[in-house]
């Protein structure tokens, strides 16, 4: 009998993080993400889910625990850890394109300077990706000429240019006008269909349900519940998660007592 072992891409063990005034933000977090899996982190604001993504990306210091990508340490300032972190991509809530560069230059900077790739080859890939997110006509535009949704789509493909093994999405639609949310989330959905491993923080519940292979519910810096999206949104195991989900449903009171 052959045991099927799915490869663990990301492993976090006993992660501890607190700010300078010693208030803990993440307590004893352990989780793993398999290759090709899409994990959605949910929880009330301030629960530590964004901080968790930022620690994985190496943007925050941690006080304890391990973060491994394919078994290799990605914590700290060492050259090895920094090299390993190049396998991660991250997209933030704020539009973070470089405003002094055209869209094409935004896409080319890291592939050429970090990976030392040839310009022609990188340009070709950039154009393919721009076509995929329907922005081929914008390659010479500057970020200030784009809408929020367009900027976020560029930010996503800018990360993809580096061929990350794991993508981190930190509330990428939170700052967008409602009608632009869809165009960005469609891109993320498409990536999940192609088998890209992703860790997603979002407040879009419909999207979370559709994209997730697994849902983690965080509160107070701890993982309270881990569940399949079907179960989580139907009948979550914990009462806290139930209360949380109620915030997103509306009950009409207009006809009460008629």
């Amino acid at each position: 009998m052959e045991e099927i072992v799915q490869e663990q891409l990301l492993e976090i063990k006993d992660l501890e993080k607190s700010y300078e005034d010693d208030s803990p933000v993440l307590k004893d977090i352990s989780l793993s993400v398999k290759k090709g899996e899409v994990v959605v982190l949910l929880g009330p604001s301030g629960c530590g889910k964004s901080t968790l993504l930022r620690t994985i990306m190496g943007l925050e210091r941690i006080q304890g625990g391990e973060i491994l990508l394919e078994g290799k340490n990605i914590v700290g300032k060492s050259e090895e850890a920094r090299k390993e972190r190049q396998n991660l991509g991250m997209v933030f809530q704020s539009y973070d394109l470089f405003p002094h560069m055209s869209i094409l230059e935004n896409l080319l900077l890291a592939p050429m300077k970090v990976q030392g790739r040839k310009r022609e080859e990188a340009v070709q890939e950039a154009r393919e990706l721009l076509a995929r997110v329907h922005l081929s006509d914008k390659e010479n535009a500057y970020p200030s000429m784009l809408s929020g949704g367009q900027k976020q789509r560029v930010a996503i493909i800018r990360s993809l240019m580096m061929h990350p093994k794991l993508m981190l999405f930190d509330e990428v639609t939170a700052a967008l006008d409602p009608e632009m949310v869809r165009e960005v989330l469609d891109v993320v959905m498409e990536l999940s269909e192609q088998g890209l491993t992703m860790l997603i923080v979002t407040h879009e519940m419909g999207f979370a349900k559709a994209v997730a292979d697994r849902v983690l519910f965080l509160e107070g810096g701890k993982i309270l519940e881990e569940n399949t999206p079907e179960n989580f949104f139907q009948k979550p195991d914990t009462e806290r998660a139930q209360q949380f989900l109620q915030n997103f449903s509306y009950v009409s009171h207009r006809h009460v007592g008629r």
Partner: protein
Amino acid sequence: MFNILLSANAEKPPVYTILFAGNNFQRLLWGLFVTLRVSLIAVLLSLPLGILFGLFMRRKDPISRGISQLYLAFIRIMPPLVLLFLVYFGTARIAGFHLSGEASGILVFTLWGTAEMGDLVRAAIGSIPRHQKESGRSLGLSSWQIYRYIIIPQTVRRLIPLSINLITRMIKTTSLIVLIGVVEVLKTGQQIIDANRFQYPKASIVIYTVIFFLYFIVCFPISQLGKYLEKKLKV
């Protein structure tokens, strides 16, 4: 007696001719050259030193912060004229060597320009959103590459209009070095007015107007250049 006065009156040439009497105009231009020599040397020293000082001001350790804030406060609180007197008369008294008026001027305006430029650099770097640096890091760029390709180009764009303003301020403020005996454009003008008091009693209006235009001719192109660069490099 009356005759002499009357005839002197009658012989007075039109007031604007004073400008080209003798070598007056060349003297004014030479004065302008002295003004520019002092201010532009100070500017050329202040810009790189100010950038270094600005980076130093961004350091977070208390000693560096203390030093930079003390320096900035000292330069800001002291009127430039007091600094000029302090350096010009003070070096002779305390250090025991004589610094020429022009050298004192360059020193004081370099100290002043470095402080002001440093503060501009500090603010310009600080105004770049944290996410710019973070997205650079999440793309795998090294700290040096983040500075080279992301932070510095944006800082420079923000600095250009501010530093142009500082440069014209420095050029104008150097007129204070008159008071430590440097014969620059304003002093030359006063000398011309004084020397021709009897022949051209109304010379001051002409001379000061010309000096106004001399300053204008120097500062206006600089501020226009600033506007042009600001537009061209607009983020």
